[in-house]
């Protein structure tokens, strides 16, 4: 474990398990308001934690992008991650389904438990993990295939539906199953009404907002528990953004949703709890969204959410 | 991958080499591959001497198609329809290539317009012996000039003058006394090294198949030499008879050892120093397939159809018999 801890900024708080190394943290030069004392890391959400992160550090080569972060993300709610550009929000998010494995220079330390299992332990099956923890990206990235194929892509590749020529020849055709999955996912993503008549059209013909909802449907089709979204609306116009925001709130009834956004109003509108990252990959404050926006503990967070910088 | 394409099997008979011999073998191959019926007067002839020269010498009681007949002599079965028992493909390059390829067994017949001994001066007798020489016609190699030169009075050169030009001693037409045109450099056109025409010219004119020459440009095939001379106004070249065209590339007379040799008069004479034999070489014996085709070339019919129309000299009957004796026994 790194000897810089999440609690660098909170000298007095005792709940952290690495307090014995606190003396070190004094040597770290952080622009922070040291008078502030808070206890937000003690914060216990009512629901059960879907994801528990402990002492997570991420390095890109020598770059320390995530600095010893611990947090619990409760089930069936929307958790927003906000913070200025480059503070590590995306990096953190990608740790939760090990998409960081795809970046050669990235090195992850610490534990991330999804449903109680540490996903950074030896033999985690990445395929299974990513089925459980789905992801939606900043700019809509549908495959250049038909709408139907986009949605059924996951189930098909996982062998859940079999609609190939071979299946048809063997009379073992899951067309019906596929149809149901596609319809259900598109309905959940609030897109069914708009596209039901043209499922075989190329997905690239959809508008940006529709494409993004299609990506959400595609993710839902593999029936995940957790959905990670990295600035899902930043490439969209206001109308499309509003739709995505509504959708996120609905999804939280069934799924655990983690959303990165650089738009503070958006975070305020849609999330149940908010984590504020600041430069250097530090988690500065994590609390109920109302609290963060109305009465944050930290001055820096206050400055940030009121637009004094960033 | 297999080793086919040998003279056995049903593959085609392949020939490659001399551009001098090419008109003969190529015409013959066209006839062969068309395999016209015996009653096709234009190509094969009725029993009428007039329409089919040499037909009288042929004993074709079954009225077989052309290729069926000649192949049948060596026991090849006729196929259904118009297809010949085997087809003949004739490539075009020059003698050296033909001799090289036939020895590498890349083709069945190597066409050459000079003897293999001249063409391969370094080869041992043992190697030379592997080639079977089938002489199919005779060429009286002409020397040609550009039309402008002919018009300027150069209708005849002596042997020394030609040698002088090709050894680089004479470089301007004004050095030729009969020339009465403007000052003009001589463009001495030659054939590619390794072509029979070149080898024969060196051997017969310069006295040694490896004699040193000074030529300005060398062309791969007789046809290209013809084009080059026709397109120039200052060229001289040696070639094969088939490519002379008095309007575009007129052949001059040559005075050699006191005798003047002129096209259409005495170029066919055996005494003409530039006369040469045209060969179809086979390697390590002559197969029946090869024999069937060469036999046709050596027949009266073949000589009259393929040799004479191309302006080459036919072999006299006794020489043809001698050549035919090198072929394997006919089976019918």
């Amino acid at each position, binding site marked *: 474990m790194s000897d810089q801890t999440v609690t660098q900024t909170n000298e007095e708080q005792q709940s952290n398990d690495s307090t014995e190394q606190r003396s070190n943290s004094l040597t770290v030069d952080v622009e922070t308001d040291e008078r502030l004392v808070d206890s937000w890391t003690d914060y216990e959400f009512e629901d059960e934690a879907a994801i528990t992160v402990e002492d997570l550090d991420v390095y890109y080569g020598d770059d320390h992008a995530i600095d010893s972060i611990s947090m619990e993300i409760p089930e069936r709610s929307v958790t927003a991650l906000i913070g200025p550009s480059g503070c590590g929000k995306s990096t953190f998010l990608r740790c939760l389904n090990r998409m960081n494995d795809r970046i050669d220079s990235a090195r992850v330390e610490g534990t991330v438990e999804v449903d109680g299992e540490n996903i950074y332990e030896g033999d985690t099956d990445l395929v299974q993990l*990513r089925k459980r923890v789905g992801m939606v990206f900043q700019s809509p990235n549908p495959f250049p295939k038909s709408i139907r194929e986009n949605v059924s892509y996951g189930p098909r590749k996982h062998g859940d539906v079999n609609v190939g020529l071979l299946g048809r020849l063997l009379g073992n055709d899951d067309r019906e199953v596929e149809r149901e999955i596609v319809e259900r996912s598109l309905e959940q993503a609030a897109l069914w009404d708009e596209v039901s008549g043209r499922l075989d059209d190329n997905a690239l013909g959809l508008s940006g907002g529709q494409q993004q909802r299609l990506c959400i449907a595609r993710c839902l089709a593999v029936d995940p528990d957790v959905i990670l979204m990295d600035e899902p609306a930043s490439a969209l116009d206001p109308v499309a953004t509003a739709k995505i925001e509504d959708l996120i709130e609905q999804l939280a009834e069934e799924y655990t949703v983690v959303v990165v956004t650089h738009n503070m109003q958006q975070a305020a509108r849609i999330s149940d709890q908010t984590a504020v990252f600041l430069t250097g990959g530090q988690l500065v404050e994590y609390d109920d969204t109302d609290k963060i926006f109305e009465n944050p503990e930290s001055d820096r967070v206050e400055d940030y959410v009121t637009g004094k910088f960033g | 991958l*297999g080793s086919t394409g040998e003279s056995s099997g049903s593959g085609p008979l392949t020939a490659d080499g001399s551009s001098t011999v090419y008109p003969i073998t190529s015409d013959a191959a066209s006839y062969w591959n068309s395999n016209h019926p015996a009653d096709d007067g234009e190509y094969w002839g009725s029993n009428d001497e007039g329409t089919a020269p040499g037909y009288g010498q042929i004993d074709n009681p079954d009225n077989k198609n052309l290729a069926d007949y000649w192949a049948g002599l060596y026991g090849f079965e006729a196929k259904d329809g118009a297809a010949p028992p085997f087809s003949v493909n004739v490539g075009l390059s020059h003698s050296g290539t033909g001799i090289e390829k036939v020895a590498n067994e890349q083709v069945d017949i190597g066409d050459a317009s000079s003897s293999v001994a001249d063409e391969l001066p370094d080869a041992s007798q043992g190697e030379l012996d592997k080639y079977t020489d089938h002489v199919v016609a005779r060429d009286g190699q002409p020397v040609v000039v550009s039309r402008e030169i002919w018009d300027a009075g150069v209708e005849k050169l002596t042997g020394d003058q030609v040698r002088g030009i090709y050894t680089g001693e004479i470089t301007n037409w004004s050095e030729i006394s009969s020339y009465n045109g403007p000052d003009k450099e001589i463009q001495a056109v030659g054939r590619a090294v390794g072509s029979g025409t070149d080898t024969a010219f060196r051997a017969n004119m310069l006295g040694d198949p490896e004699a040193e020459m000074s030529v300005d440009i060398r062309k791969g095939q007789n046809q290209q030499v013809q084009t080059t001379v026709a397109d120039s106004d200052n060229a001289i070249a040696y070639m094969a008879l088939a490519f002379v065209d008095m309007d575009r590339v007129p052949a001059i007379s040559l005075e050699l050892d006191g005798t003047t040799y002129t096209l259409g008069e005495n170029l066919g004479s055996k005494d003409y120093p530039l006369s040469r034999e045209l060969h179809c070489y086979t390697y390590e014996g002559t197969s029946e397939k090869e024999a069937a085709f060469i036999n046709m070339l050596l027949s009266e019919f073949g000589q009259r159809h393929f040799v004479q129309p191309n302006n080459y000299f036919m072999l006299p009957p006794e020489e043809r018999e001698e050549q035919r004796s090198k072929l394997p026994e006919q089976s019918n």
Partner: protein
Amino acid sequence: MSEQTATRTAAPAVDLFDRIALGVVGLSIVTFLLGWTTLFERTGTDTAVAGLSLFTLFGAVFLLAGIGLLVSGIASYVGAFETTADRYTGIGTGLGLGIVGFAVGGLATTILFGVGATGSVLVGLVVGLVVTSGVAVLPEDLGTTFPVGLLGLAWGGLLVTGAVDAGWFWNPPSLDATFHAPIVVPLATIALSLLIAWSGAIVAEGFGSQGRQNGAYLLIGLNAFGMIAVLLLLILFVVQKGLPKLLEGAQFGPGLGISVPFLTKGVMLGQQYNGIFPAIVGTIWLVIGAVLLAVPIGIGAAVFLTEYAEQGRFTAIIETTTNALWSTPSIVYGLFGYAFLVPRFGNSNSLLAGMFVLGFMLLPLVVITSRESIKSVPDEYRDASAALGVNQWQTIRSVVLPAAMPGVVTGVILGVGRIAGETAPILLVTSGQPFPARAPSILGSFRFVATPPFVQNEALLQASSALPYQLYAVITAGVGQEEAFGWGTALVLLLVVLGFYAIGIASRIYFRRKLHQ
């Protein structure tokens, strides 16, 4: 200094000044075009316009243009008209005109005084240096007009006085060539017209940066126009020469069906119209074989190099070698095929050997273009697929390759266009009869046999013709009587190859548009 930045705004140029400049440009464009037509022997040197012979006419135009340039240069210098001329002409223009000075000085020396190569080069150098340094420090309005104007006057004078007339020639002592007026005058006219047009264009915009832009654009535009015109003429020329042969004996129309013997027949006795069908079929098989060989291997290698292999020395080496091999001359491949492959493929020239050689030639291109297009598949697709829990191979197969396909297909089509037109390798490893009667029948020749290699295909192991070789054969086997046949073949070859290119390029444009829709 900054107060100086408010320079003179381009004054609305006075009409007269403008008209002179435009006249100079217009005249020189006319002589430029006439120069070309004269060079191509479309305009005879004896053409007379208004009683002036062509060359005199050129001369008169150059005199006029020269005077126009000189006048406008001086007018600007003395301030008769307001222009934005710079303080100095500058070293770049100086060097360019210096090179002209070098050529003119050197040539004049040797032509007029018969000075040898070394001497005239020396004189040329001196002239060039003088011109360069002189022009560079002159004010821009003089530097860009004077040298060109003087040159125009000189050349115009020579032509008008008849010092250089249609019978003029120069025979350089050391070269074999004699330069006659009918070739020299048009060439010099074209070059000088360009110079004058350039200078006139600068004047027209009142010098300065706008003027230089105008001059440069005019030169570049004329050049582009000339280039495209020449290339198009080339094609039109082939079409005009080849079309009669191609259509010889062709029939189409209601009730007749379509028959084009040149495309459907071989060369055979007793046939009214001969054609190049065997060569067309040969080319088709060669292309099919090469594609079957190169495309799977090439795409496979590209996938491995891009998706699986770590980018490092290994991939760099493969990249370097594929690039090098793509530019390796085809004759080298041909030589390799002749010495290595032919003996292994039944020891005779064969279609199969041709397919392999062309396949080897195509391989580097397939690897390069496939790599490019696989690389250009956005990582988002891979991420999206990975985030759905799909493994790497499935991702490659279902997402990456389909997305990369347009690029690969385009690349392959362009490559096919190139190999379909290759002559040298065919000549060495495939060619047989120059004018075959029948096309190879590949599909009908498969035989299964009891001995290894169990499958035989004689037609594959036999020599064949192909379109480019057919054209070569016309050249070697007698342009004289068969030239029309050659033009017909050239036209078909051109149509086939340019067809591949056009399809390839059109598909690329199509896919790009589709991507950006």
